[in-house]
């Protein structure tokens, strides 16, 4: 699998603040690559540098194996930070400018993308009359114009209602299925977890981890159990030598096993043989959110 973007040891400072501190990672082709991090972690700075609106203090990046250039940016559909359009122009006229600059798409494609983001009926209304959600949808339309193989989306669901969010999620999945590569910055972890194949986690300008989402999520097995007598259950489980946590609020016992070693049928049999009948037994998948908090120590 070829590499679409490689970021190499990027540094960026704003007066006293170090926004990026030696960040390096690679984005493989046909991946949905999430750049995650709390507010101020350097996500937008990173995207600003790879789209040439910010200058790094050190380090570099390569698109498709070559140093970044205007010609390469023309082939990339980008939504960076906020939707930036000429307020006195309509959606169609604004997209004509996007088309003139990038060379992506034609007149028909403008109508196609406006239909895709449900703005076609308002295509002649000036941008300044749009709601926040409509502005965001126009920015997504601009990024999709001409069907670019690579998309860079910074917080793409900003300002969208739940239906809009679901539509964008579906759109991202659809694009991936058609072989597109999507680089997406977000602080909405649930959103990222649902669509991303790969991720990089940033904190205070430093890369905490990067790789396939499954690798990032790689962690101990957590088994949640309950029984009529919680203390008796906990005592039995102590015999397995595993770490046991009793949560009396939820009336549950949690047991931690090394990754891939929790066997629910054996656990059930063991408890029964020890005289404890289970009323609840489940292998819990750790949410990305929990992993994120662990990694960023929040």
């Amino acid at each position, binding site marked *: 699998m070829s590499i679409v973007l490689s970021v190499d040891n990027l540094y960026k400072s704003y007066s006293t603040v170090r926004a990026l501190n030696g960040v390096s990672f690679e984005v493989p082709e046909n991946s949905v690559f999430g750049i995650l991090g709390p507010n101020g972690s350097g996500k937008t700075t990173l995207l600003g540098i790879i789209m040439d609106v910010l200058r790094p203090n050190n380090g570099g990046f390569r698109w498709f194996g070559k140093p970044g250039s205007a010609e390469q940016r023309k082939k990339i559909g980008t939504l*960076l930070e906020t939707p930036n359009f000429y307020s006195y122009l309509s959606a169609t006229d604004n997209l004509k400018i996007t088309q003139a600059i990038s060379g992506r798409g034609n007149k028909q494609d403008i109508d196609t993308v406006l239909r895709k983001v449900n703005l076609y009926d308002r295509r002649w209304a000036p941008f300044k009359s749009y709601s926040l959600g409509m502005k965001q949808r126009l920015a997504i339309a601009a990024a999709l114009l001409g069907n670019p193989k690579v998309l860079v989306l910074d917080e793409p669901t900003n300002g969208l209602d739940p239906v809009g969010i679901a539509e964008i999620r579906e759109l991202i999945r659809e694009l991936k299925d058609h072989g597109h590569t999507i680089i997406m910055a977000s602080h909405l972890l649930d959103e990222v977890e649902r669509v991303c194949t790969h991720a990089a986690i940033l904190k205070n300008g430093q890369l905490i981890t990067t790789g396939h989402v499954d690798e990032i999520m790689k962690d101990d097995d957590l088994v949640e159990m309950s029984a009529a007598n919680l203390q008796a259950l906990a005592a039995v489980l102590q015999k397995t030598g595993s770490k046991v946590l009793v949560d009396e609020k939820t009336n549950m016992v949690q047991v931690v096993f090394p990754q891939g070693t929790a066997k629910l049928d054996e656990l059930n049999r063991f408890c029964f043989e020890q005289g404890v009948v289970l009323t609840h037994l489940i292998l819990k998948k750790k949410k990305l959110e929990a992993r994120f908090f662990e990694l960023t120590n929040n």
Partner: protein
Amino acid sequence: MKTLIYTEWLKMRKYNPFWWIMGITALSYPGINYIFYAGFQDITSQPGQASTYAKMALGNPFAFPEVWHSVAFFSSLFVFIPAVVVIMFISNEYSFKTHRQNIIDGWSRDRFISSKLMDVVMITLLITILYFLVALVAGLINQERLIRDTWGQSYYTGLFALQTFAQLSLAFLIGFLVRKAFLALGIFLFYYIVLENLLVGWLSWKKVSAASYFPLEISDRLIPKPGFWYITNPSAYQKDLDAVPLHILLTVLLTAFIWLFCYKLNRRRDLK
């Protein structure tokens, strides 16, 4: 080049303030010349000997070939009107953040500045065409004899274009550095109408030669006041005419410096 002009045309064609200001310019250039022309007519058409003497002394500044010079001078007093459009065009890019979006969409940083250079060139061209038409029409109206040196001083078209381009470039520089439309307009108009005139006037009165080398004054001196202005001091007129080539050189250098500076700064800075 074609794409640059087309893209800029897409930005300006539905921008109402552009058309309003160009409309005002289209009225003000013939207007200011008509006011001076009417004044000249008043002086020279009164009954009695005085008007005959005045006519002999002043000549007709609105007849060929002097009309090219006179109209260029009077029209150049109003360059601050199209300067408003130039400032609006660059500050709009900052307020809409499209100075970033144009780069994200695939322009290089140099190409963005070139697009703004095209704006200034296009506006200069429109203004020069307007000047040319006003001068031509005024000259034709005042054509007293069939054989006249119609195109004798038409080189003022080039000088007018250079002066307009240089002064609009200065307006662009202020818009480019200040970014905020109202602040940039305020600074430019204050400098154009008040500050430089005060400084140049004061230094000229003190006979300090630096008076000729202020940013706007350099290009102002491409088009000296028309000849009749110097009726009592013809040697000063000749001196100002002789200084024009030097000021052409200085204007070209200053304008080139302005644009090179803009290109260089835009290459280096973060686009926020």
